[in-house]
Structure formats: structure tokens, C-alpha cells
């Protein structure tokens, strides 16, 4: 097929009708800027050829312009040597028309679609080959899309490619069955049925081995049981066992008897010891009794003898006590006299202090009285002073402002001038600040009215106030004038000093206070009187008397000390005598308590004597018995022998018993185990497991053989598939080769089973297609399309190849070679290049086509 014209209206960006006219059918190039609509043209051609006009698929919706509309596409195509015009409108007013431009025959609607499909033949999508920028290779794989013409093209050159479904079904089935036995690892591992069988076999093997072990154990147990029973029979029936028991009993009996004899002997010896002890006790009791009686007698005699001496000592002690009392009294008297003397001294001292204190007190009181009458306190006087000073200043100022009136009498005029009834002296100066009235005798009255400024008024007022204040202060101070106040103040100060002095003197004389001092003096005086001391004695007298009394006291002390020593000695001697008497009395009492009343002591002694006699007899009897047992009891060596013999016999007998018990126990144990064996029927189980293991093993071998067979079959099928694929791809590879050598000399492109590029081999290196550079991938993709197109052309069903900016990552040199390939390809089939790279594609050649307005009257309508 070839496309000679493409016309669009309301398709994508082409709301207005546009057309690409005059395509040569060889190499046609539409070069234009981005957003020219090149991709829209490609989509529109695809849609018109392969999408029914009735379609509402998304790809048709995407053809609608943004502003809306119904896409209209018209193509002039040439196929099988005849020109056709195809016209389709989508979405609204859907329609399809196919007109034979040779005969004018027109088919519409579904008929047009049917006829179009027939024209395109069974090639389907391979009536048109497209390479868009970044398009996935796989989408063009002919095998997947099932293009029959393409396959027919290949098949026409390849024999025996088509194998139908049988081999594929077999291959699928082989893979499926193999996957049920082996994994796809290398080396493969068992899975599915095979793994299950192997696991079952291994499990059976384990269980069988276990059953065999248990069976062997069971057999051993049976054997052992027989052996044990034989041993048991031998041991149980042995004469030795029976005689051993008798021997053991006899030996034990002999030993027991010997031991009993020794025990009895030991008991007899103990009895002898006890009797001896008893005898000793009785003897001791008797001796003690006699001794106590003798002691009692001695004590009573001593008590009697001690009585006279005690009386003498008591008398002497009394005398010493009296003497002591007298000495003490004499001493105490001396002390009393001294104390009285002391009292007198203190009383005198106190009186002197008291007098001093009283005088000070009186002076103080008097000063205080005077002080109370003097109100000229410091602060008042000071205030008055300040006021006076101020007054002086004010008066001075006022005087300075006031007129100065000096009285000068003329002869004979003295005393004739009076002011306020007072005669002015000659030369007296007056500074009247207020109107002054001078009465001049015989003349008249002269009034002097001084002028007064504002300041003067103020000063005058101030002066008056101060004068008033001064008067008040003086009044408070009780003074008539400031000088008076000063005098009063001075007097006050003096009085205050007197008060302070008197107070100090009072404190010195009576720090405890005058009243207390008075009370102390009164107490001392009372004491002195009570002691009879002279009240009027002087200190010197007192001192002399004190010395005398001191000497007397010393003598009395000495006498007292001697009396005390004597009294103590007498008292000690008496106490000693009494202690001896008391101890003796206590001892006598104890002995009487022990010995009893005198009338009963004889009986008591008799009893003790009898007890002694009885103990002696008992001892004799015990000695006799012990002697008898000593003769019959064996010695240690003999007893040890007997014991040893008994032990040996017992041990032997026990050994036999233990052996019997052990054997019986072992028999019971083995029988129990055998019961368990029977419970599990281990022999049958072992046999059964053995059979099952053999079967399972055979089954595993069979499955493994099956897996090997399937593996071999799979390998053969894969190899066959590879061979078929290689033959299948051969036609494509042959067409591809010249193009490939242009771009990548010495390289070989490996196609996959779907004819999509799989890898590129250069020399010994093989690179996966996906790992090639983007540029190389797009170049190879284009070359494969060229090969497809060439194959179709060679088989008489050429299809145009539209390339929409599919080589954007190609360098200049390769682009040049690609151009060469495109030019060569255009000789066999149409190549329509849509590109935005106007400059680069200038050297491609071919016919340049351009968009024009679609002038068709029907389109405009």
C-alpha cells in the first residue's frame, strides 16, 4: 500500500481542514516545527486505516480538538495497483466511505470497513508500519499481533515453520509436569510430587529404621527375658540360698546372745558403781552429821564466851560518842561566833554604803526638782535664739529702711519730747517703722510716718511673726528675755550635770538599788542582833575578835578530830563483835536446822547409820552379780568375731535376696517392655514399613526417572524451538543485515522469538538490547521496521513505513547512514518521515511535503 494524500479536519490541533498532498509513495518528508501536528497526522492515519468509524475508544476521543468537533480523516491510498479514497468521520455524524478512484465505486459504512479490511488483506496492522519516538519495540512484534501477511511472508521463505498447536501444547504440558517435579534452579531441586515422595520416603526410612531398632530391642528383650528367667530359676532354687538363710540366722542369734551377755555384764557393773556411790553418799552423810554436831557445840560455847566482852566494848563506844558530841559542839560554837562576827562586819559596810547612796539620792532628787522648774530646754532656747537672730536681721533691714530719728535737745529742751509717754533721751535714736508720734511739750505732736515698700511690709509682717514666735518660745522657757532664757538654760545644764553625778554615785553605792540595799542592811542588822554580836563595833574590833575566834576554832577542830577517831575505833570494834556474833548465830541456826532439834538428833543419826549399812550390803550384792556376768560375757575380740561372722552370713544372704529381687525386677521390666512391643506390634510394623519403604523408594525412583525424562524432553523441545525460531527469524535477519552493516558494521542483532530485538553481538561480546544506549536502541528499532517493511515489499504486499521523530538520540554520523538506509528502503516501499529537525533532515533527500489547506468543498461544508 502507498499513501498519496492525507487530509484532516477537526482532528487534534487541526480544527480547520488541512491536507498533505502529493506524497510520492517513495521517500516523503514532512519537516516542521514542534506542535505542527505531525504525531496527530500519524494517529489519524492509523485510526482511519484500522479503527472502525463507529468506535468510541479513547484513541478516537483523543483525536477530537479541544474546542470540540467530529474528526474527519481522508486518505488517498494505492493498494494492489489501484487508487482508493478512504474517508471516515468519527464521534458525531459517524461515517465511512471507500471509493475506488478508478471506477468510482463507493461503499459506505460497514461495507466500507469490510472492503477496507479486505484491501489491507490479512496483514492487519502490517498494512502500515510506524516508528514513533520512544515507542516500545514489543508492540510491533509481528508474532504477538498475529499479522497473517507477515507470517505468510516469512513462511513463504521458510519450510516447516508452522508446527501447529500440538508441539506447543506438548511443550506447555512438559513444562507444567516438570514444574510439578523440579524447580527451575540450576541444578534443579525436587519440588511438588517428587519432593513429597522423597520426603515421604525419608520419613518412612526414618520410621523403618526406628521400627527396626525397636524390633531389635524387642528381640533382645525376648532373649534377655529368657536369660533372666534362667538366672532367676537358678538363684531361687539354689541350696546355697536356703542354707545361707539358716546360717545367717544362726550367726545372728549367736552374736545377739553374746551381745546380750555383755550388755548384762555392763549393766551389773553399772549397778556396782551405783551402789558404791550410794554407799559413799551414806557414809558422807553420816560424817557430815557428826561434824555438824561438833561444830554446833563449839559455836554455842563461843557465843556464850563472847557476851562479856561485847558489853565492855559497847560501853567504850558510848563514851567515845559522847566525847565526840562535845567536841563537835565546841567547834560549832566557834564557827557560830565567827559567823556572827562576819555578819557585823558586813552590816557596817552595808551601812556605809547605804549612807552614801542616800545622800546621792537626795541630791539627785533636789536637782531633779529644780530641773523640773526650769523649762529652758535646749531646743526651745535654740529656737528662740534663731528667732531673735532673725528678728535682729529683720529689724536691721527695717531700720535700714526706716527713718532714723535722733533726738537732740537744744538747751532747755531736754525731756520735752516724749514718745508714747516716754521722754526721749538726748541723742536717742529712733527708727520708727510705724508712725511715730512725738509729743513735744509745748509745741505739739510730731508724727513720723515712715514709708513702707512691699518688701518692708513683708519684712514687717515677718518681723511681727517672729517676735510673736520669740515671745512664745520665751514663755515656754519661762524666760522674759533671750538672755534670761540663756541663763535658765545654763542653769538647767548645771542641774542636769548634778543629777548625772548623783545618779552615778547612787549606782556605785547601791548597784542593787537603794531599797534592796536598805533591806540587806536591815537583814544583816537582824542577824547580828540575833547572833548577839555588837552592833556598834568597828571593823578593827571585829578583825581582832575574828583572829581570836579563828584560833579557838582551830583548837576545837583538833579536839573534834581526835574524838572522832576514838569514836570510830570503838564503833568498829563493836561492829566487828556484832558481826561475829551474828555470823555465829546464823551458823548455829543453820546447823540446828540441819541437825534438827536436839531431842531428835539421836534418831537422825541412827537413821543415817542404818542407811550406810544398807548401802554397804547393796554394794556387796552388786559386786557378786557383776562378777557372775563377767565370766559369761565374751571379750571384745570374741564379740567382734561373732559380729563379723553374722555380718558375712547376712551379707551373703542379702546378696542372694537382692539378686532375686533384681532378677524379678528385671524380668518385670522386660515383660513390661515386651507388652509395649506387642502393643505396637513392632515386628509387623517393621515389616509393613519395610514394604512401604520399598514401594515409596521405587516410586521416588520412578518420579526421578520421570523428571529426567521430562527434563530431556524439555531440552529437546527448547532446542527444537530455537532451531525453528532461528529459521523463522531468518527472513527478517536477511533483510536487516544490509541496514545493520550501514549503522553497526560487523554487528549481529539477535531477535527473540517474537522477532523483537533481544541482543546485539559484536565480536564475542553480547549485549542485551535493553542495556544498549538509547540512541542505538532507537536506531536498531528503526532498522528492524525497515527489515519488516522490506520483507513485506519483497513478498508483494508492501506497507508504508511512517517515521515520526524516531531518531532524536542519533548522532550526526549515524544519522547520515540512516538517511542512506532510508533512501535505499524507499526504493522498495514508501517511507514517510515526519520530523522537527528541519536542518538535520535537509540532507535526507526525498520529496518535501507540507501542510496546506484542504480545499475540498465538502470538507469546507
Amino acid at each position: 500500500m502507498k499513501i498519496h494524500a492525507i487530509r484532516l479536519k477537526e482532528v487534534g490541533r487541526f480544527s480547520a481542514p488541512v491536507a498533505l498532498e502529493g506524497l510520492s509513495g517513495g521517500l516523503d518528508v514532512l519537516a516542521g516545527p514542534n506542535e505542527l501536528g505531525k504525531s496527530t497526522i500519524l494517529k489519524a492515519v492509523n485510526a482511519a486505516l484500522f479503527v472502525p468509524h463507529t468506535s468510541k475508544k479513547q484513541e478516537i476521543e483523543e483525536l477530537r480538538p479541544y474546542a470540540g468537533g467530529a474528526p474527519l480523516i481522508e486518505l488517498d491510498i494505492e493498494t494492489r495497483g489501484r487508487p482508493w479514497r478512504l474517508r471516515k468521520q468519527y464521534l458525531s455524524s459517524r461515517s465511512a466511505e471507500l471509493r475506488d478512484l478508478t471506477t468510482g465505486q463507493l461503499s459506505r459504512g460497514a461495507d466500507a470497513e469490510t472492503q477496507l479490511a479486505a484491501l489491507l488483506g490479512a496483514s492487519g496492522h502490517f498494512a502500515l508500519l510506524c516508528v514513533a519516538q520512544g515507542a516500545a519495540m514489543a508492540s510491533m512484534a509481528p508474532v504477538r499481533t498475529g499479522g497473517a501477511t507477515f507470517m505468510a511472508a516469512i513462511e513463504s521463505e521458510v519450510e516447516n515453520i508452522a508446527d501447529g498447536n500440538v508441539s506447543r501444547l506438548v511443550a506447555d504440558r512438559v513444562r507444567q509436569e516438570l514444574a510439578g517435579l523440579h524447580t527451575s534452579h540450576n541444578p534443579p531441586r525436587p519440588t511438588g510430587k517428587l519432593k513429597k515422595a522423597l520426603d515421604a520416603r525419608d520419613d518412612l526410612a526414618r520410621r523403618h529404621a526406628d521400627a527396626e531398632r525397636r524390633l531389635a530391642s524387642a528381640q533382645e528383650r525376648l532373649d534377655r527375658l529368657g536369660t533372666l528367667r534362667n538366672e532367676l530359676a537358678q538363684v531361687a532354687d539354689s541350696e546355697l540360698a536356703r542354707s545361707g538363710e539358716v546360717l545367717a540366722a544362726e550367726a545372728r542369734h549367736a552374736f545377739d546372745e553374746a551381745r546380750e551377755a555383755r550388755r548384762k555384764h555392763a549393766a551389773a557393773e553399772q549397778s556396782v558403781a551405783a551402789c558404791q556411790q550410794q554407799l559413799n553418799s551414806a557414809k558422807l552423810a553420816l560424817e557430815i552429821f557428826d561434824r555438824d554436831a561438833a561444830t554446833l557445840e563449839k559455836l554455842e560455847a563461843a557465843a556464850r564466851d563472847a557476851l562479856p566482852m561485847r558489853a565492855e566494848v559497847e560501853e567504850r563506844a558510848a563514851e567515845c560518842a559522847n566525847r565526840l558530841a562535845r567536841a563537835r559542839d565546841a567547834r560549832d560554837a566557834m564557827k557560830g561566833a565567827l559567823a556572827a562576827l562576819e555578819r557585823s562586819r558586813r552590816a557596817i559596810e552595808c551601812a556605809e554604803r547605804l549612807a552614801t547612796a542616800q545622800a546621792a539620792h537626795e541630791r539627785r532628787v533636789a536637782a531633779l526638782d529644780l530641773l523640773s522648774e526650769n523649762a529652758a530646754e535646749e531646743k526651745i532656747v535654740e529656737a528662740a535664739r534663731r528667732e531673735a537672730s532673725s528678728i535682729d536681721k529683720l529689724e536691721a533691714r527695717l531700720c535700714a529702711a526706716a527713718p532714723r530719728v535722733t533726738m537732740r535737745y537744744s538747751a532747755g529742751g531736754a525731756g520735752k519730747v516724749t514718745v508714747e509717754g516716754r521722754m526721749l533721751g538726748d541723742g536717742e535714736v529712733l527708727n520708727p517703722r510705724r508712725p511715730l508720734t512725738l509729743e513735744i511739750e509745748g509745741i505739739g505732736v510730731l508724727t513720723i510716718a515712715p514709708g513702707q515698700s512691699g518688701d518692708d511690709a513683708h519684712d514687717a509682717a515677718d518681723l511681727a511673726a517672729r517676735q510673736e514666735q520669740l515671745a512664745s518660745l520665751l514663755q515656754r522657757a519661762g524666760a522674759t528675755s533671750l538672755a534670761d532664757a540663756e541663763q535658765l538654760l545654763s542653769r538647767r545644764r548645771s542641774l542636769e550635770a548634778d543629777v548625772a553625778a548623783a545618779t552615778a554615785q547612787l549606782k556605785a553605792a547601791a548597784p542593787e538599788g537603794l531599797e534592796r540595799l536598805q533591806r540587806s542592811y536591815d537583814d544583816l542588822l537582824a542577824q547580828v542582833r540575833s547572833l548577839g554580836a555588837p552592833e556598834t563595833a568597828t571593823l578593827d574590833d571585829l578583825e581582832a575578835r575574828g583572829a581570836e575566834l579563828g584560833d579557838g576554832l582551830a583548837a576545837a577542830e583538833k579536839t573534834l578530830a581526835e574524838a572522832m577517831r576514838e569514836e570510830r575505833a570503838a564503833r568498829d570494834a563493836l561492829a566487828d563483835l556484832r558481826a561475829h556474833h551474828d555470823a555465829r548465830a546464823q551458823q548455829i541456826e543453820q546447823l540446828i536446822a540441819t541437825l534438827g532439834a536436839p531431842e531428835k538428833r539421836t534418831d537422825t543419826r541412827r537413821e543415817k547409820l542404818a542407811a550406810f549399812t544398807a548401802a554397804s550390803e547393796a554394794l556387796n550384792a552388786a559386786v557378786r552379780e557383776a562378777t557372775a556376768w563377767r565370766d559369761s560375757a565374751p571379750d571384745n575380740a570374741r564379740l567382734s568375731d561373732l559380729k563379723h561372722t553374722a555380718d558375712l552370713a547376712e551379707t551373703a544372704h542379702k546378696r542372694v535376696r537382692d539378686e532375686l529381687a533384681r532378677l524379678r525386677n528385671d524380668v518385670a521390666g522386660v515383660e513390661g517392655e515386651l507388652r509395649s512391643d506387642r502393643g505396637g506390634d513392632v515386628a509387623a510394623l517393621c515389616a509393613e514399613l519395610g514394604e512401604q519403604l520399598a514401594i515409596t523408594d521405587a516410586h521416588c525412583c520412578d518420579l526421578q526417572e520421570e523428571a529426567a525424562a521430562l527434563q530431556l524432553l524439555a531440552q529437546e523441545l527448547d532446542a527444537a524451538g530455537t532451531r525453528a525460531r532461528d529459521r523463522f527469524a531468518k527472513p527478517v535477519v536477511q533483510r536487516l543485515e544490509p541496514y545493520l552493516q550501514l549503522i553497526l558494521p560487523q554487528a549481529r542483532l539477535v531477535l527473540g522469538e517474537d522477532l523483537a530485538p533481544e541482543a546485539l553481538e559484536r565480536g564475542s561480546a553480547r549485549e542485551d538490547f535493553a542495556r544498549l544506549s538509547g540512541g542505538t536502541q532507537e536506531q536498531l528499532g528503526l532498522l528492524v521496521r525497515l527489515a519488516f517493511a522490506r520483507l513485506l515489499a519483497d513478498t508483494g504486499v508492501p506497507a508504508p513505513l511512517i517515521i515520526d521523530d524516531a531518531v532524536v538520540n542519533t548522532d550526526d554520523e549515524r544519522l547520515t547512514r540512516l538517511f542512506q538506509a532510508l533512501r535505499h528502503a524507499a526504493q522498495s516501499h514508501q517511507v514517510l518521515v515526519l520530523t522537527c529537525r528541519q536542518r538535520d533532515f535537509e540532507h535526507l533527500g526525498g520529496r518535501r511535503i507540507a501542510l496546506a489547506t484542504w480545499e475540498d468543498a465538502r470538507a469546507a461544508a
Partner: protein
Amino acid sequence: MRFTFLHTADWQIGKRFGSFPDDKPAVLRDQRLQAVDRLAQAALAGGCTAVLVAGDVFDTETVPEALSGHLFARLKGYPRLAWHLLPGNHDPARAGGVWSGLAASGIPENVHLHLEAKASEIAPGVVLLPAPLASKRTESDPTAWWDGVDTGPAIRIGLAHGSVQGFGSAGDANVSIDPARVKSARLDYLALGDWHGTTRISERAWYSGTPEPDGFRDNDPGNALIVRIDGLGAPEVEVVRTAHFTWTRRTLKLDGADQLAPVEAEVAALGASAVRSLLALELQGLVPLAESARIEERLTKLEPHLFHLARDLKGLATFAAADDIEALGSPVLADIAQRLKLAGEEGGASAAVAQRALRRLFTLARQAEGADS
């Protein structure tokens, strides 16, 4: 005087039949117990008053007590019969064995265990000389002591388990019995066990065989003997069938599936009794692949008719004929088949794999054709 008894042996009670699939082992085991009922019925129908069991009552020494209890319950159910049981090589009388447990737990009155080599009067004027085995193997002849036993004019019946010298044993015991014992011990009859097929050794010495076959042996198992001793003449021995299942072994040499016809006919002839038949079929020969598949199909069709079909095809080799390859209908598969055929003809372990792969290829191809059509 006259004494009639049933001679049987090798009951193998408790045998597991573990190699059989599904629930077949349970059925086979159960039939061994049910055989006892058939023996009892045959004995009673034959006018017997005693049943002599010549060894291997149990298949193992470790039979569960429950199973031995079941057996004794059955025996007890026939009080008119006196059951005389002898230990064999599978169930020897030894300490801790199956018999010591049974003896301890009590046995029915009509069951008599002959665990010692001691003559026993089992009926008025009838003395039984048992030769119980005390181990699986013994070098000595357990019947040797019979020669010296004086039983007066009584009927002397020997009961033993082992191999009569000069005669092969089916069992795995190595117990030799002098075939002249009948004469040296002045036996009226020697009841033997161990050989599972009914076999006449002499007019007075028989192997009864097992009452219920337990293996594919062509030695006439599945019987019991009714023995009538009357006076000094040779005893009258009647073979009575007691088997439920029939075990048959066949070996066929094939070169085509059609040669299975005789076996198929044989099975068909069994009719309803085919379901009580076990068939061990060994095939040998060399057949084309297509035939091999057909053989498999016919065997698969035959199997449900029988209780069990044990097929052994190891001896049957296959080959791919030209027709077979052509019939594949696929050049690819034909090519592969040809390659596998050549590999299979080379010999060795890989040849076997190739042959099997070839067989699978044909099977899968046939299945694929069926799916494709």
C-alpha cells in the same frame, strides 16, 4: 477307634500387608481372622471334634493383645471344637513372647496351648505329640523326642512346624524335621505347618497350608485338611477349600496389547469372584510405543475388576516405530522423537531416560491431539 480332626496351620494372624494401598491391608488382615470361622465351619461340617494348628498362629511375636484376644474370642465361640495351637517360627514359645502373655491372661477352656514338648491326650485314646518351637531358628529337630515316647495303643498324632528335609520351606525358619519321623515315632499322622501350600509328603504326613493365602505363590494355599483316622490304615485326608481371596501370579510375554486377552478372559471368567482375586501380572517383551500405551490402558481397565492388580512392567521394553513417529503429526515432535529413539538405542542409563522421554512424548502428543481437536 476313630478320630476326626481338622489339620490347619500358618494362620499368620496379624500380618500387616503394608505394601497394599488404601484400605486393602485392613481387608486382607480381617480375612485372616474370618478364615478361622471358615475353618470352624468346615471342621464342624466334617464331623471334627478337634482342630490342630501346626504353628505360626500369629505372624509375629509382638502381636497386640487385643488382636490375640479377638482370636481367642472366636475360638471360644466354637465350644464343640477343641483348638490345639502349636508355636511356630513366627510365634515361638519363649519367655515374654505372645504365648506367655496369653497364658497369663487366661485362655478359653476349648483352647489348648502346646508350649512344651510333652505328650498330651487330646481325646480318649488319642495322644498328641507336639513339637513347639522356642525360637525362630533351631539346629535340632524338635520332633526327635517323639521316638522315645510310649503312649500305649493310643492314636499318635504328631504336630510340628518346620521343613521336612529334602523339601523346601516357604518360611524363613531353618527348622529341619526328619521325614522318617512318621515311622520312627510310630505316628498315625504328622500334621505339618510352615509350607503355605497344601502338600502331601506321604500318606501320613501333610502340610495343610495356610487357610487364607497371603502371597502370590503357586503352591495351592487356601485349604485345610480333614483327617479321619480309623484303625491302623492310612488316614483319610480330605482337602477343603477355606480361602476367601485367590492370589494368582501370571507372566506374559507380549509384543502387543492384544496378547493381554488371555488374562482378560481369565479375569472375565472369574465373574463375580474376580473381586476376591489378587493378580500379580508380570509383563515381558518388546512393544511399540503405541502398544505400550494401549497396554497401559487395558491394564487400567482390567484393574477395577479385581481386588488388586500388581503390575510389573519392568521387563516390558518399548520402541518407537516409523509409524509411531509419523503419527505424531508434528515435524518438530517427530524430529524430537527420532532423536530420542536414537538415544534410547544407545544403551546405558541415559538410554532408559531417553526411552521414557520418548514414551512421554507419545503420550503427551496423543493428549494434545485430543485437546487440539
